Structure formats: structure tokens, C-alpha cells
């Protein structure tokens, strides 16, 4: 990569991904579906990918470009944003953007799922993520060594750095020069800042906290045939503009040009292992109520932190009676969420926080361990701007209903909201298991148990105080707090040996040479970064390793 690629104003389009040019300037749906390859179930394709999200999308595009025959099986629909998506909070759910199949949640801190952290359909949950795409810090890869908690990764930051850069150019990411972690710049300039974010930014400055604009995977300028963001604020409802990135528009258009088939409406229920050879031979999936079997020479599970463990556990077979990759009882364990407490603040001015993307300004000043604070690791701070239903949930969380809720709601336009992402540590008992209940496909319903540890609670308590100080500095009249959680990673962690992990450093399931996990479930720790960019970067790296090993596949 030449340095000029990173200079703003002279931004070169990605060389190995034509997706932005394969879209239409005036239509949002994919334009090359009529020439998408179709494979038969009997075809032994080179790779079947389970799940068309951040991990599966990048992996499929990379390997299709290298000549692999790839089939992607996706449970949800193949979206056409013009036809399917709406500028409406409730309508986004009705359109089917969120994973609404039942999950049983338990523990001292049960994690609510659905729109909060789980997507379906081509593009995965990135179709409704807010858009923040921060990088992990170098320290994230050696948490155990540095702090004696969590885990080390079997790879280091430098091994992932080029992948981060490549993916940032493809999305593309907009933001100010980034001073934290490994300092870097972004391909697109920072977006203009809304009134709601501006008051938070000012408050932080007065309190001595530096915040910067971005980083968000939202175009700030024309990008191929993708238009500039129009600041309508409905990022969480699916971007009807094609300004916010998701694999639907950033990777699948290109993958299709190289012979990849994305088969929507297909729920994979089992990965089949050939008893004689020990290799994965394909996957069983349900489509329109009928079972099919796609044969494949390799399988990549990209279903995220709940569905990936669920599928590996449900694929138990004579060679792997407790599930695939589960000899050491690690599948489904060490699932992590981030503490995502939000503090809202009231101002005399009309802020109208529904305008502009909810993600605008963020800070990683508290990301790293500071022993003086009395806990390991840290948190990031980000602006968040809920639309009315989200704001009502915020108000209700403080116990308001009736006249008092209506009164808070009528005051909507006077409020701004700051949130944290606190690094919760991986714990073995925070896990996904299979329940007794069966879903519509006869698959066991997943159970997800969660307890925060003392360090998790200490980070959130400290961070909540910082948000209060920021709002104090900003001159807020009053505040409202909601404790909540965001994101999901872990459940099939990457590690050094079959005894400490589910996959090796190349994301291959220990003991099954042609089975890979390429999604957020492989993360051993999570930092205080939104996970999308890391998942895509890992998929990019994984694909480059697979390419090199193509000869012996």
C-alpha cells in the first residue's frame, strides 16, 4: 500500500473490490442479481458460508475473487432497501431486520437480544448497526499479559493492521485523525456534527476529555455509485441511502461478479462431518419448510456469538459427541457483551437529536488500563441519539409511565444522549447452551446466561460518573440514566491450543481441518470498540491465509 492511499482528498478506490461501482446511483438494490451463479445442492462447492454478515460477507468476497466456488446460506431475506426498508422504527422490525427467533436469557444480568444485537438477512446485523467502526487497540491482543485478566490473542495487532486499513477503505470509514491506540487516519473526512452531539463535545472539552468526530462507516462524499449521507438519522432502521456500510452493498455485489451465490431464506441446522475422513462434508439447511443438504469441500460458520455456538453444539456426531470443536467444553463459553450505560441530559436549547446519524463523536481516552482507577481495562464514550421509541424505552427504564412518561417524551427535542462501551471480561460461565425447547425447524432454542464480574461493574460505575461530569461541564439541567448492554462477541474463542480454545490462529476449528469460524465469536477479548470492523478485518486475514493454503485444501 502506498502512503498516498491514505491521504484525504486523494483517496483511491479499493483495488480488489468493485462493489461501489456495481451499485446504481438511483436504485439501492443490487443490480447484478440476474447474473448471480446458482449451484445445486449436489455440487461440491469449494466453500459454503453460513451467515451473510460482517464475517461471511468479507470471506465470501475475498475467496470468490480468488476463484473459489462459494455458496453463502443466509437465514433471512435478500434485501432491496428501496422495496423493503422504511424510515420508521417499528417498521424496521416488521420488515424483519432483527433476529426475532426466541432465545431464553438468564443469569444475574440477562441480556436482551433482538434489535439490540442480532440481525438477519443479507448484510447481517450491520444493516442496522449504528455505524461506529473503531479499531481495536494493540493492547487488546495481550490483555492477559498486561493486566493478568481476560486472555491473550494468538495474533498481534500488527498482524491485523493491514486488514483494518483495507476494510476501512472499502466501507469507507469517515472520521478525524485518530490519536488513540495505533494512531491512524481515515479515508473520508469527518461528518458535520449535530446540535445534540455538539453539546456533548463541548461538555467533554470543558471537563478535559478529548472527543473526536467518527469513526463511522458512512460515506462523507460520493463513493463509487454510493451517494453521500443525507443525515436523516435512521441508521438503525436500515440505510435507504446506501450511505452506511453493510456487506449487502460493500462486499456482496463484488462477490456475485466472481461467481458467489448468496442463497437467502436458508437456515442451516447442522454441519455434517464425514465419519470416515473426519472432514466436514457440507451443511443441512431448511428452506421453505424442506430440508436440503449443500455439499462442500470446506465450511465456514459465520453466525455470530449465539448462532455459531448453537450450530456447532447441534452438529454433535459420533466423532464429536459433545459438538464440533467442543472436546474441551469451550463452545458457547466466554461470550461477551459490552456495558452500554447511557446518560441523557436536558438542555434549554432545542437539540432535535433525531437529525444526523446517531453515531457522531467519540472518545477512547479511557480505553486503556489506569491502575489509579482501581480496575483493569476501560471504556469508550460515544454519542447516541435514540428515535422516539428508543427514547421511550430510556424514559421507561427510569420507572416513568403515565403523565410523567408523556411529559418526558414531549421534551424529546431538548435532550442529548451519551453512551459508554465498557470492556466486559470473558468468563467461562457467560455461555450459550442448547435448551429443551425446539424452534420451527426442530432445532433446540438457545439459552444465554450472563453475569457481570466485579471488574465489569467497577468500569460501569466509574464511566457513569464520567458521563455525569461531561454533562455537568456542558451545563445540562438534568440527567436520566439507563443501564444496558450492547454487542455480542465470543463463544468460539481463538487461542493457542485445543485445550484453551475452539479455533486456532487461522480460525480453523481444532481437529477439523476444513471447518472454520469467521465471525465475532472467535474474539478472545473485545476491547471497548464496536466489533464490526474487527470481525471484517479478521475475515480479511482469514481469507488471505486460506488462499495461501488453497493448494492443500
Amino acid at each position, binding site marked *: 500500500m502506498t502512503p498516498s492511499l491514505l491521504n484525504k482528498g486523494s483517496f483511491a478506490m479499493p483495488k480488489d473490490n468493485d462493489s461501489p461501482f456495481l451499485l446504481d446511483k438511483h436504485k439501492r438494490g443490487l443490480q447484478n442479481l440476474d447474473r448471480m451463479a446458482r449451484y445445486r445442492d449436489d455440487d461440491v462447492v469449494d466453500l459454503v458460508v453460513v451467515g451473510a454478515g460482517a464475517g461471511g460477507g468479507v470471506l465470501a468476497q475475498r475467496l470468490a475473487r480468488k476463484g473459489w466456488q462459494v455458496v453463502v446460506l443466509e437465514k433471512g431475506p435478500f434485501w432491496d432497501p428501496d422495496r423493503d426498508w422504511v424510515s420508521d422504527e417499528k417498521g424496521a422490525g416488521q420488515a424483519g431486520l432483527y433476529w426475532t427467533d426466541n432465545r431464553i436469557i438468564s443469569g444475574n444480568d440477562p441480556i436482551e437480544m433482538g434489535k439490540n444485537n442480532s440481525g438477519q438477512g443479507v448484510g447481517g446485523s450491520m444493516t442496522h448497526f449504528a455505524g461506529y467502526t473503531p479499531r481495536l487497540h494493540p493492547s487488546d491482543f495481550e490483555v492477559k499479559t498486561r493486566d493478568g485478566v481476560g486472555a491473550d490473542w494468538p495474533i498481534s495487532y500488527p498482524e491485523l493492521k493491514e486488514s483494518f486499513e483495507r476494510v476501512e477503505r472499502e466501507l469507507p470509514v469517515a472520521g478525524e485523525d485518530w490519536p488513540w491506540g495505533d494512531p491512524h487516519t481515515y479515508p473520508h473526512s469527518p461528518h458535520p456534527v449535530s446540535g445534540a452531539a455538539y453539546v456533548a463535545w463541548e461538555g467533554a472539552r470543558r471537563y478535559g476529555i478529548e472527543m473526536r468526530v467518527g469513526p463511522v462507516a458512512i460515506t462523507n462524499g460520493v463513493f463509487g455509485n454510493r451517494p453521500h449521507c443525507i443525515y436523516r438519522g435512521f441508521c438503525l432502521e436500515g440505510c435507504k441511502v446506501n450511505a452506511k456500510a453493510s456487506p449487502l452493498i460493500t462486499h456482496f455485489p463484488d462477490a456475485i461478479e466472481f461467481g458467489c451465490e448468496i442463497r437467502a431464506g436458508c437456515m442451516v441446522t447442522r454441519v455434517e462431518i464425514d465419519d470416515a475422513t473426519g472432514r466436514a462434508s457440507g451443511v443441512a439447511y431448511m428452506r421453505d419448510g424442506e430440508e436440503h443438504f449443500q455439499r462442500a469441500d470446506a465450511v465456514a460458520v459465520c453466525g455470530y456469538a449465539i448462532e455459531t455456538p448453537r450450530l456447532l453444539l447441534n452438529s454433535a456426531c459420533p466423532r464429536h459427541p459433545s459438538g464440533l470443536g467442543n472436546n474441551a467444553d469451550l463452545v458457547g463459553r466466554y461470550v461477551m457483551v459490552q456495558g452500554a450505560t447511557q446518560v441523557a441530559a436536558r438542555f434549554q436549547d432545542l437539540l*432535535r437529536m433525531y437529525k444526523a446519524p446517531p453515531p457522531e463523536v467519540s472518545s477512547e481516552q479511557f480505553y486503556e488500563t489506569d491502575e489509579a482507577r482501581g480496575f483493569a481495562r476501560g471504556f469508550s464514550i460515544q454519542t447516541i441519539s435514540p428515535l422516539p421509541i428508543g427514547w*421511550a424505552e430510556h424514559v421507561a427504564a427510569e420507572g*416513568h409511565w403515565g403523565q410523567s412518561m*408523556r411529559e418526558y417524551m414531549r421534551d424529546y427535542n431538548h435532550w442529548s444522549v451519551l453512551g459508554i462501551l465498557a470492556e466486559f471480561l470473558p468468563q467461562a460461565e457467560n455461555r450459550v447452551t442448547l435448551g429443551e425447547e425446539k424452534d420451527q425447524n426442530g432445532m433446540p432454542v438457545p439459552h444465554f446466561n450472563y453475569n457481570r464480574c466485579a471488574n465489569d461493574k467497577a468500569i460501569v460505575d466509574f464511566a457513569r460518573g464520567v458521563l455525569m461530569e461531561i454533562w455537568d461541564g456542558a451545563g445540562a439541567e438534568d440527567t436520566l440514566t439507563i443501564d444496558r448492554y450492547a454487542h455480542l462477541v465470543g463463544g468460539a474463542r481463538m487461542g493457542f491450543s485445543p485445550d484453551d480454545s475452539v479455533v486456532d490462529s487461522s480460525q480453523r476449528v481444532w481437529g477439523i481441518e476444513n471447518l472454520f469460524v469467521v465471525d465475532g465469536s472467535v474474539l478472545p477479548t473485545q476491547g471497548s470498540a464496536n466489533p464490526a470492523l474487527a470481525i471484517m478485518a479478521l475475515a480479511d486475514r482469514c481469507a488471505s491465509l486460506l488462499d495461501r493454503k488453497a493448494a492443500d485444501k
Partner: protein
Amino acid sequence: MGTDQAHPNPHGLRQRKGTTPQLAGRYPDWNVLDEQEHWDETTRRVVLSRLHDVPELTFFDEREAATLTAFCDVLLAQDEEPRIPVLAYIDEKLAGGVGDGWQYYDLPGDGEVWRIVARGLDDEAQRNAFDSFADASLELQASIVHRFGQGELHGRAWESVNVARAFKVVIRYACQAFYSHPWAWTEIGFGGPAYPRGYGAFGAPHMGERESWEGEESFHVDPVKDTQERGIE
């Protein structure tokens, strides 16, 4: 205008344009529905159908419906017409069988939670010699809802659920039904659907800046202080 002067009762101000629930609100000359020609066709269809095609009740029976209609009125302070028919949307969602994607281990499915809540609310009313929650006085209804929110209802129907969590489920459904309705958007001054028009005037660094078509606020009060002063927090 600000909080330094005696604040007007929001119910004292009547909506002049369009409809808001109970004609309450702070933007008397703003009607989000006047902007519909600027919405994309898919969104317009979804939002207008919500307004005009109020679904028939199919999930709840008559008794449940009467109890839960009264409950939702208290929960959302819909004490007079015009009311947003929230129970119709809740019924529609439950009848569709697609939940929000999770279930607490100590609660049944969302539909069953709603039925238990209906029975439990009637149990509480019967303890006070009313046949059903719908027949109880407004004061008693408010007190029952208050205790429900605190997780302090016990016995009979309530024994089978975690009461505080059941409240979280029903208030989530109620808020989603209420604040997805364009009347509520007009009430709170929300700009509504914004594709393909988008926004140009963000408010920073010029606070108070707005689009030419956005509504003007006629007064405002800090709800934290206001609800405390009025004893409704």
C-alpha cells in the same frame, strides 16, 4: 420561554393543527402528516396504514381487551379522546406470533405474559370489590399500575411470573405501539420519516436552528422538575 416562569399545564394547550393524543403537545401548529408527500412510497404506505387500518382484536378476548385497554390508558396517560388505539397494535403483534427475539427464563412467552397481566390486574381490582380492572376507579387503577411497576403485586396470577420483568415487557409493547403512531410524533415535535429529503439544519453550532418545514415549539418545561413539582414522577 423557559422554566423560570410559571409553566403552563401541557393539557392547557390544545393542538391547532392535525391530531395529537388528547390534543396535548408543545408544537400546536406542527403536523407531521403534512410532510407525507416528502416520504418515500414504502414508508408512507407503512405509516399511513398504521393510521387508517386499525386492526381488529383477534388475540385478546373481550374481557382481556376491556381490562388491558383500561390498563394501557393509565400506563400512557390517555385519559380522554382522541386516543391512539394502542391495544389494537399490541394485539396485532401478539397474534402475529413474532416477538422481539428474547424471553426471560422466569417469564413465559410475551403473549402469555399479557394474558397473565390481564388476569392479575382483575385479581387486584376484585380484592377491592370491583369486578374488573376496567371498572375500578382511576385512583385505584393508578395505584395498581404503580405497584405493578415496582414488582409489588402478589398472589394468584402474579405467582407464575417475575412481576417487575412482566412490567418491562408490557411497557415495551405499549411504548412501541404509542410512539410509532404519527399523532405521537406530532405531539413531541419529531420530524418523522426523512427519506429522501434528509436534513440540512442540524443545530450545531447554531443552536435552535431548524429546517424551514419543522415545527416551532410554543413553550417548554424541564420534565424532571415539572413532574416532581406536580407529584407525578
